[in-house]
């Protein structure tokens, strides 16, 4: 090929057009201080952006950036006014004054009627919202959700466009905290009626009243959130755009994107943690607020309904070893109580004020309990079924427990590994002896964990039933006096230990990477996490 041929070949426009396609036109960086843009990734496509039905973390994360309820949390975790500028409490009545300048993304004002419509609708049994129970704090909420009363009986009324009166079912000390939850967000009636089943299915199919609005949503690929010019506090919002450009649950892929300066935040797991260390990245850690425990099957006739057997396991187990040797990533705390360390008590933290009783590993004592259990159960103990999820971490933990109980107590454990829905089915029907379970908080009050083992709680899948425990839960539920509530919960904590109702394993921590120029990103145990709404970019 002569030089002339080469030149004429390179001169072809079509050839260059082809190369232009190959080279990305605009390469979006993880953070851009000039345009005030950040790019992030999501672990999955938000399954449900209809706030009345949303249940999962990703949807609640996105909604937290797009919407605002009566109140919201500030960066220090305090409740601050949101759509409500002030409120007034009298016994069971809460009167909220809504601000005049709260607007939907179409410019229309957010009114008290939007809350009335939303709360009624979320409780309407026809909506079939899985999180409806969180609205049971409102008068007649439960009866409506069970179809026993019409939705108009709900204890929420709009006195005028900007005055909202809520009547509670019973004294609820943490009601304001509930108001920050996704199910309590307002929705605009006209929009819901116009869109019907497709409400919130696409960017144009719902209205937002929060700091950002959803500009663009390519399913499975990206969500573009831009600053909402109608948001009342827009002057305090620094970011112009949050682009969720990548959707993948693969932590390694996200680490690679982070290394390539494509995303500003990513969480790590055991494998990627080592790579992040090798790359000398600053690794941060955070307590997610969730507690993981082994839940026993307390149903009659089950071996694990025997107290001495449960106690034997309690004393044969070491939570520190689980955290340090089995989980082996930083951030997790050994599980001692069902009530995690971050819960507020009377003045300080609950766990500081009411230290959880702890069973130090004591094999001799464990074997004594086991001997008693064998006597009561009439001889040798047949294999116990340990039901766990199918993740690698769950398997690792199950094998560790299996080994421990065999070595220390000679107990034979059969591991039953199941995918999510099947595990749930078996948990609900009681087809297990011990199940690897966990609980994440819905709101930041002790009651989100407190009533977990109450006899009426549907999430009490081990069917633990103790009238004393129930009584303490009722006391805490029906009081607004902090001391009374905490005393009751401390008693509950003691019962959970004495009865060895569950075996706490660990309090979950996450480790994550954050772009060094990004400031003001808030991590939370409940609600929007991580919260980028008021993040800033350093120059």
């Amino acid at each position, binding site marked *: 090929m002569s030089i002339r041929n080469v030149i004429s070949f390179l001169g072809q426009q079509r050839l260059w057009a082809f190369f232009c396609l190959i080279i990305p036109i605009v390469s979006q960086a993880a953070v851009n201080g000039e345009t005030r843009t950040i790019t992030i990734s999501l672990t*999955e496509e938000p399954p449900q952006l209809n706030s009345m039905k949303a249940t999962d973390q990703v949807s609640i994360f996105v909604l937290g950036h797009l919407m605002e309820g009566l109140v919201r949390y500030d960066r220090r975790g305090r409740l601050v006014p949101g759509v409500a500028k002030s409120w007034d409490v009298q016994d069971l009545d809460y009167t909220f004054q809504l601000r005049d300048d709260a607007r939907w993304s179409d410019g229309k004002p957010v009114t008290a009627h939007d809350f009335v419509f939303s709360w009624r609708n979320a409780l309407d*049994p026809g909506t079939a919202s899985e999180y409806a129970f969180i609205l049971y704090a409102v008068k007649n909420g439960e009866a409506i959700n069970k179809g026993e009363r019409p939705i108009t009986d709900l204890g929420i009324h709009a006195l005028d466009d900007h005055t909202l009166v809520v009547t509670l079912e019973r004294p609820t000390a943490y009601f304001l905290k509930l108001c920050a939850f996704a199910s309590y967000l307002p929705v605009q009636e006209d929009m819901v009626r116009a869109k019907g089943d497709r409400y919130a299915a696409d960017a144009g199919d719902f209205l937002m009243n929060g700091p950002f609005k959803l500009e663009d949503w390519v399913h499975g690929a990206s969500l573009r959130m831009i600053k909402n010019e109608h948001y009342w506090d827009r002057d305090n919002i620094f970011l112009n755009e949050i682009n969720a450009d990548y959707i993948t649950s693969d932590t390694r892929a996200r680490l690679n994107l982070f290394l390539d300066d494509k995303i500003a935040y990513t969480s790590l797991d055991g494998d990627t943690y080592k790579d992040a260390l090798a790359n000398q990245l600053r690794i941060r850690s955070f307590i997610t607020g969730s507690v993981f425990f082994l839940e026993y099957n307390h149903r009659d006739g089950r071996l694990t309904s025997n107290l001495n057997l449960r106690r034997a396991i309690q004393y044969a187990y070491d939570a520190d070893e689980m955290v340090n040797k089995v989980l082996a990533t930083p951030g997790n705390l050994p599980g001692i109580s069902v009530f995690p360390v971050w819960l507020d008590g009377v003045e300080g933290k609950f766990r500081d004020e009411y230290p959880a009783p702890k069973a130090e590993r004591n094999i001799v004592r464990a074997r004594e309990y086991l001997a008693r259990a064998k006597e009561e159960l009439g001889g040798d103990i047949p294999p116990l079924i340990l039901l766990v999820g199918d993740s690698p971490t769950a398997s690792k933990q199950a094998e560790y427990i299996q080994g421990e109980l065999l070595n220390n107590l000679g107990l034979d454990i059969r591991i039953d590994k199941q995918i999510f829905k099947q595990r749930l089915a078996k948990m609900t029907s009681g087809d297990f002896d011990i199940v690897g379970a966990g609980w994440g908080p819905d709101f930041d009050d002790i009651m989100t964990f407190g009533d977990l083992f109450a006899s009426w709680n549907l999430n009490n899948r081990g069917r633990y039933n103790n009238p004393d425990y129930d009584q303490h839960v009722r006391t805490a539920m029906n009081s607004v006096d902090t001391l009374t509530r905490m005393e009751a919960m401390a008693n509950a904590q003691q019962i959970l230990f004495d009865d060895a109702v569950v075996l706490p394993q660990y309090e979950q921590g996450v480790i994550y990477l954050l772009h060094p120029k990004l400031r003001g990103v808030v991590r939370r145990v409940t609600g929007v996490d991580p919260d980028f709404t008021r993040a800033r970019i350093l120059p």
Partner: protein
Amino acid sequence: MFRYIAKRLLAGVITIWFIATATFFAMHAVPGDPLMNDRAVSDEVRRNLEARYGLDKPLGEQYIIFISNMLRGDFGISFTQQNRRVNDIIREHFPVSAILGILAIIIAALGGILWGALTALYRNRLPDILIMLLVILGISVPGFVFAATGQLALVHVNAIFGVKVLPVAGWGTFSHMLMPALVLGLGTMALLTRLMRTSMIDVMGEDYIRTAHAKGLSKQRIFLRHQLRNAILPVVTVLGPQISAITTGGFVVEYVFAIPGLGRYFVQAVQQLDYTVIMGTTVFYGAFLVLMVILVDILYGFIDPRVRVSA
């Protein structure tokens, strides 16, 4: 030819019906259901959800409803994304998988034919040994390893050059497609290389090749017109199933490269027991596979006239 095609189409329809029925009953036989979730719901809410999705009816009736809806091309609403129709999910995400798959197939077919022919020409010499070594790697190493290494390689390349040579993940431009398509096509390329090599060696020993040489034809002409064309036949045969395997089996690549393809929904649906999405994607993929096999059979007839005659 028409009868041949009609017969194949009829068999295809029966196959799809069988796939749909087997999947439907297997799926319902699995313990648990899509309505179960982390947070237990009240009986009333559950009843309403069951009614919305028709799960309150007996299984036989559900099956009849499903089949009649399927015949009208309606797969219902997803359980995990309660405001999205399964048809929309397929319509929006299958093209992504298809583009990726087609690109991967092009890469795999071109590469496979080229490397296969090359190894046959250099049989038992260094290029042959080298390429066959790589082929064994390509067949035995699982796709997610290629995906992860391919992506990591891009991170390093981008870091070395200081500019973004190719994006690490994501979807949108042609440059986003190159690495995932290459990774996705590698296994098939290796397979096709082996196939092409064997078939090429067979052809090279045929009498008509010797005749061609004796006629004094040029080497290039023999290679292109006689050897390649005849050797390519077995490759085309496996291309059909491979096309569907690639377009449907790309979910690992889709995960790693954050690509909004249908493969991801296909796998997630099974994990979530999302009945409607499982049925929609399985029937769709099943139909796609059947169609590809039929297409290849027809294509085969064009390449090799003998097939047409015997059919």
